[in-house]
């Protein structure tokens, strides 16, 4: 989601992004520390944080009742944004391919993206179901 609006430029919102970003980075670094990547192996830590973050963000952005800009910035731009990573994901794909594990690289790339989309969609649908809102898909008119 781009669409950062004008209210998100104030300093309290920036501090919320910093705090959420710190928490997200800590979570990602802790998982990397606990599940260090092995040569030619599946990058489980990045895989896990990216999928968890996609599901959590799908859930969050589908909710229509935000408690305020600060908690929104903390959770979405901060926590989910920093918990997940694109640069390490791409680097892992390239490293796997370069080390001769092309099939692992392709499988990792494809499952990350497909499961990420699936989880974001499922979490979003689940949230809309809970809040009783009509899904965006149900509006052909």
């Amino acid at each position, binding site marked *: 989601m781009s669409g950062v609006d004008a209210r998100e430029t104030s300093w309290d919102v920036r501090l919320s992004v*910093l705090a959420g970003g710190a928490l*997200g980075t800590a979570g990602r670094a802790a998982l990397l520390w606990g599940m260090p990547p092995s040569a030619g192996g599946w990058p489980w830590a990045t895989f896990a944080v990216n999928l968890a973050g996609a599901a959590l*963000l799908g859930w969050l952005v589908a909710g229509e009742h935000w408690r305020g800009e600060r908690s929104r910035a903390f959770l979405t731009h901060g926590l989910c944004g920093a918990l997940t990573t*694109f640069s390490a994901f*791409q680097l892992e*794909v390239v490293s796997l391919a370069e080390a001769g594990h092309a099939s692992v690289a392709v499988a990792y790339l494809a499952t990350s993206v497909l499961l990420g989309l699936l989880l*974001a969609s499922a979490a979003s649908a689940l949230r809309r179901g809970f809040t009783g809102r009509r899904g965006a898909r149900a509006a052909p008119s």
Partner: protein
Amino acid sequence: MSSAGVVSWFGLIVLGALGALARVEIDRAVSARVKSALPLGILAVNGSGALLAGFATGLALAPWLLAGAGVGLLGGYTTFSTWMTGAQRLAADGRRLLAMVNVLVPVFGGLALTVLGLLVGRGLAGG
């Protein structure tokens, strides 16, 4: 945990937080200047982050410096979750072609930029 361990965790977390703030600022700046149905701000953030991550890795920096740049700063700067929900939202709005573009362009563009960064970094490190 050793004191060096505490310092490096603290450093990672601070860098990740700064990366997250940089993402929000750059996303906002790009989205304000270029109007598009595609989330171009996040595309720019992830593309530039992939290039820089490749570059830092290619330079063969000291491990602590590479962790600070890659896991900390660029890890917090780039994002997977916002990319996924951006594509999901386009698809849910019925803009399937744009959703597909928003998935495939970052995948192939990101890989190309990562490789480019790696090659440039290695060239500088080796030359």
